[in-house]
């Protein structure tokens, strides 16, 4: 019988096309940030003064009509004598082929051992770069920065949601199980906190993080700020579920055998809400990702030289920047991609785990 349920849930999930696509994209994204150092052709901090705001590098396959494999040309920077605008002129004599497993900037792979092998690239050249997404204000490779920035954005959402859901589940369960004045106090507190508009509260809390903190500590601080807001919605729903669960006879039975209230909550009440928790987690990760992005975008989150998608977008704040360097918007596409994928997966999970939809799903 248990096997049937598993089968049904799996079937219902795999029926959801968008959910599958979202799942695949998410797996790719997380693999991407896992091997970001290796996938990125450059170190995300290395600057090239000659290539500030260089547009995405064009990859050529043929030379004079003859196929010679992917390659880029050397570039020389010059200024337009009339407008003084920066121009890059390609030097077709200098050919830099794109190779795999090339040596480039050194990095510590997963912080374990030092290496300089990158999946692809043209090596370190003075007069040529392989900037797939173009360069930023300091001549850093936007593609490499997007990969590294994804680490912050995608994990902040994950960890923030985890913390928020754990706090929400525990507080909600206590509130619902004990009832009485404990319930009243917790619920009124939640109402007060929730009546603050979300973004100003985030900003106010993010302001509390001292600017002198190292970037990893700031990152943790941001995660905590995000989860501080996120737990309340979970707590309210879990409270409601516990209110009905606590009347079940097996809770009474647990009391009758002398089980402690704490054990009843952690062992019987919260586990019975777990399908909801799974769904609410996947559905609230996008909110967290957006939250981190908005805080960083507004300049109160992750600080340079560390980076996140929101911080990368910060460069695209002014219209003139977007007009001159439209590739600075690319990090935004990644945010959209991640958020949509999580939403689709969340929808698919919700439909799959919903016991009341068994009839049309089997």
């Amino acid at each position, binding site marked *: *019988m*248990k096997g049937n349920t598993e089968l049904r849930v799996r079937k219902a999930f795999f029926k959801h096309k968008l959910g599958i696509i979202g799942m695949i994209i998410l797996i790719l994204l997380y693999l991407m940030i896992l091997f970001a150092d290796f996938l990125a052709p450059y170190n995300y901090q290395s600057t090239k003064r000659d290539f500030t705001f260089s547009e995405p590098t064009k990859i050529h396959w043929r030379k004079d009509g003859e196929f010679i494999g992917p390659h880029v040309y050397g570039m020389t920077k010059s200024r337009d004598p009339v407008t003084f605008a920066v121009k890059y002129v390609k030097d077709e004599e200098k050919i830099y082929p794109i190779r795999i497993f090339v040596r480039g900037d050194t990095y510590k792979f997963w912080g374990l051992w030092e290496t300089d092998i990158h999946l692809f690239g043209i090596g370190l050249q003075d007069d040529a770069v392989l900037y797939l997404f173009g360069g930023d204000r300091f001549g850093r490779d936007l593609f490499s920065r997007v990969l590294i920035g994804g680490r912050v954005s995608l994990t902040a959402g994950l960890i923030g949601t985890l913390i928020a859901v754990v706090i929400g589940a525990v507080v909600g369960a206590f509130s619902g199980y004990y*009832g*009485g004045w404990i319930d009243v106090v917790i619920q009124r507190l939640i109402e007060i906190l929730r009546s603050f508009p979300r973004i100003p509260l985030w900003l106010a809390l993010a302001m509390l993080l001292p600017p002198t903190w190292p970037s990893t500590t700031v990152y943790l601080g941001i995660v905590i700020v995000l989860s501080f807001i996120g737990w309340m919605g979970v707590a309210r729903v879990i409270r409601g579920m516990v209110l009905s669960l606590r009347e*079940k*006879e*097996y809770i*009474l*039975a*647990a*009391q*009758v*055998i*002398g*089980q*402690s*209230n704490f054990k009843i909550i952690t*062992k*019987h009440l919260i*586990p*019975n809400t777990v399908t909801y928790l799974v769904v609410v987690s996947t559905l609230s990760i996008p909110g967290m990702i957006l939250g981190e992005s908005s805080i960083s975008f507004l300049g109160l989150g992750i600080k340079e030289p560390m980076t996140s998608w929101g911080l990368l977008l910060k460069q695209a704040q002014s219209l003139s920047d977007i007009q001159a360097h439209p590739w600075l918007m690319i990090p935004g596409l990644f945010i959209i991609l991640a958020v949509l994928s999580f939403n689709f997966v969340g929808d698919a999970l919700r439909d799959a785990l919903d016991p009341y939809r068994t009839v049309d799903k089997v």
Partner: protein
Amino acid sequence: MSIIQVEHLKSFFKTDEGIVKAVDDVSFELRENEILALVGESGCGKSVTAQTILGLLKSPPAMIEGSIKYHGQELVGLSNKAYHKLRGKEIGMIFQEPMSAFDPLYTVGDQAAEAVAVHSKLNKPEIRDKIIAMFNKVGIPEAENRYDEYPHQMSGGMLQRMLIALTLACDPKVLIADEPTTALDVTIQAQVLNLMRDLQNEFNTSIIFITHDLGVVAELSDRIHVMYAGKIVEKADVVELFDHPKHPYTKGLLASRLKREMKGQILPFIKGTVPRAFEFPEGCRFHPRCPHAMEICKQKDPDPVAFENGHVCSCWLYLKQNKTDGVESQ
């Protein structure tokens, strides 16, 4: 020797519609090694009495007065912490719906082990052995395999036996059985009743058996207390009660049992229903349904009258008679 002594117990609930007197001035005792049956229709306070004994009612809204003594220890007003030590270990309880008494997320064995682990210092394999031995004792086939199965894989009768097994595995002195056979079909009922009888003999447990089924009571119990609308109206040994019922309510209950001779006739029944708990009538609470209701019944609650063989009944019929006969009323 009485193991539980309940005196003038009152469990009231404050609700928006008024005060619900679910249990009103109930006194009884549970003796060692006996099965005491609490009998009555739905909603007459049997289960609330049980829950009061186990301290399961939250106050507020519950207001509990009177005294419950377990081995001389006062339970009314006992702290939650002290109750945790008592529940399961000293007083166990089994439920009406075995299906819902198990958490669907854990295997039955795990839940039985949880019950034992709360009160004992045995390690996991020892607990497992103990549970499997108990499962065997209550007649569960392939107990070893059943240990690792989930509640939804069991039948109701099997779960009820497992519930009995896990309750008795904690070795309680008192077992409160709240309609343990109501949700089971008749053949399984008989099995479970026999099982309880056997286990009671083996473990020397005293049992408070709550039911509305007089047939079940006749088979199992030593003494019967009949409850109506939050009060005990009649107390007697099982044979005495069946042979000489005193209270009109008891008579009504006995008359409405199925008998073979009644084939083709309309079943006798007690007219009306148990009044709602916040609008119990004045005087004797049974008087609106009582065929012998008198003027005094509407005004005053009758005191208990003692007869021979420990038979006690609260009814004006006997109070008047006693007065005229000059027999002392209790």
